[in-house]
């Protein structure tokens, strides 16, 4: 008894999602965070597409495929927005990560 391809890829997808989530939470570099989001997203798409798989000889369920295509395009849009912001932040602050939330109570313009 071995794994069906869909189960294998669904598990792989979950693994990729967790790797992305882990790197997203521990690395402060903005580009790495954005990269991590893209990789975590790819994991989610893999889970979705594995739900569509009906066996080698059969056509796969098209609806999750359409969802993945939509998801990829939405992810590109989000990545572009994030990179634009990251670029502005690094040129304003000279840093590649987010500043710690300043002690907001003391902050006074």
């Amino acid at each position, binding site marked *: 008894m071995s794994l069906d391809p869909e189960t294998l890829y669904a598990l792989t997808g979950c693994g990729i*999602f967790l790797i992305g*989530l882990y790197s*997203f939470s521990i690395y402060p570099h*903005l580009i790495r*965070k*954005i990269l991590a*989001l893209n990789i*975590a*997203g790819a994991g*989610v798409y893999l*889970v*979705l597409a594995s*739900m569509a798989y009906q066996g080698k000889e059969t056509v796969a369920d098209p*609806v*999750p495929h359409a*969802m993945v295509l*939509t*998801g990829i395009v*939405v992810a590109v*849009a*989000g990545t572009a*927005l*994030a990179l634009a*912001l*990251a670029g*502005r*932040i690094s040129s*304003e*602050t000279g840093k590649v990560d*987010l*500043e710690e*939330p*300043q002690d*907001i*109570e*003391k*902050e*006074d*313009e």
Partner: protein
Amino acid sequence: MNPEFLSWIPWLVVFPLMGAIVTFTFPRIATWAGLFTGVLILVATVGLVAQTLAYGANTYSLGGWGAPLGIDFRVDGLSAWMLVISAVVGACVSLYAIGYFPPGSKASDEEKNHKRRYFWPLWMFLWAGLNGLFLSNDIFNLYITLEMVGFSAVALVALANSRNALTAAMRYLLVGLMGSLFFLLGVAFLYGTYGTLDLTLLGERSRANMATWVAISLMTAGLIVKTAAFPLHFWLPPAHSNAPTPVSALLSALVTKGPFYILLRLWFFSFASLDTTYADYLFGALGAMGLIWGAAHALRQSRLKLLVAYSTVAQLGYLFLVFPLARAEETGFTAWTGVLLFLAAHALAKTAMFMAAGNILQALGHDTISRLAGISRLLPKSVFALALAGVSLMGLPPSGGFIGKWLLLDAAISQGRWWIVIAVLCGTALAIGYVVRVIRFAFEDPIDLPQVKSVSAVMEWTALATALLASLMALASSLPLDLITIDAPAHVWPEVGVGP
């Protein structure tokens, strides 16, 4: 079904999308095109509400396919109520934005023109996303509307263009994107388990199994981050306080309510048949802690806009009390109504409060609370608006906030949930504290009046009008009740007559 009825629903998404295209393509007429779109949305919302009251809940199949193959819009009392809130708040904020982003100023004034030019299309996209979110009955479509709302909200925060605003926007975007991925992974599991994305069909098919629990836990985690409920609220105060004022108002009043609305859909409609006892307690505990934590922090703020932002964290806490309270058979409907009225009251009061705070910030050039002395003489309308909105936030009669809070307390007392009663009372005491503190400084007599910049009349009057709406909401509470009851979740359906 009455064909006329069907026709209002899609326009609520079509109008703002058209508005987005026009305001982006023709920046010169952006302000007027945006306002015109606002009027169209108001008209469509009124039409929709009238027809929902007359004919009851309805479903609209996009592309004519119908669920599960196609996507459905569904309008019931809850979604109509949310649409009304977003239309009213949206109209108020649009009016305010005329003053905040003045049209037709000199061409040399590049920064002002830039902000006005991009505010309108981004706000139109935000409005389209929100309306789409409240209408959609399809969990994957909800994901896209969440992203549409999130992206436009982030860009709107960044419009303030300060270092703090850019950082806050980035944090908001990163957290929001991760939250969406959690939601989408949950969608994948639900689709794999039930073979449908339709909320109604999920409700019919839902059963308790591991995949379902994991799916709704993932979705709930993502939505809690996006709602900024305690303890995942960390991104909210900087984002809401550093944004341009109209944006602060939109974020606090509407954007946080979108994901909360999806939580209601999931837990009270689609997955109501599962045993949710522990989840309800968890939500209730988070809500109770959030409302005390947020109010305590609001009390400690030295800047007005941050105080208002922390107050949002606190007020979101009250919303989560609906989960333990609305499950009870006898008084569930009281709590359900209470929370929905509270939500509307908070949206209006918080909009007014941010507007008033923004006016003060613009006039004085700062919003440090301890240096507000004399402002009540210089901006009497704004300070009055602040006070009126404050009354609603505290929950004193006759404001909208009072009715909502009263119904919640009523339900909590009759269910014997004393911990909720105590939390609500503590939160109220703290709210009185932070509102009174601001008002006290605002009414203090200064040694000499500070120099102020002028604030446009539109901004002052809109703040006041919104505050009046928030406090007079109580007078119109039979209409909301009629609307909210339409297809309310079965187990909170009133057995006997309810009402304040």
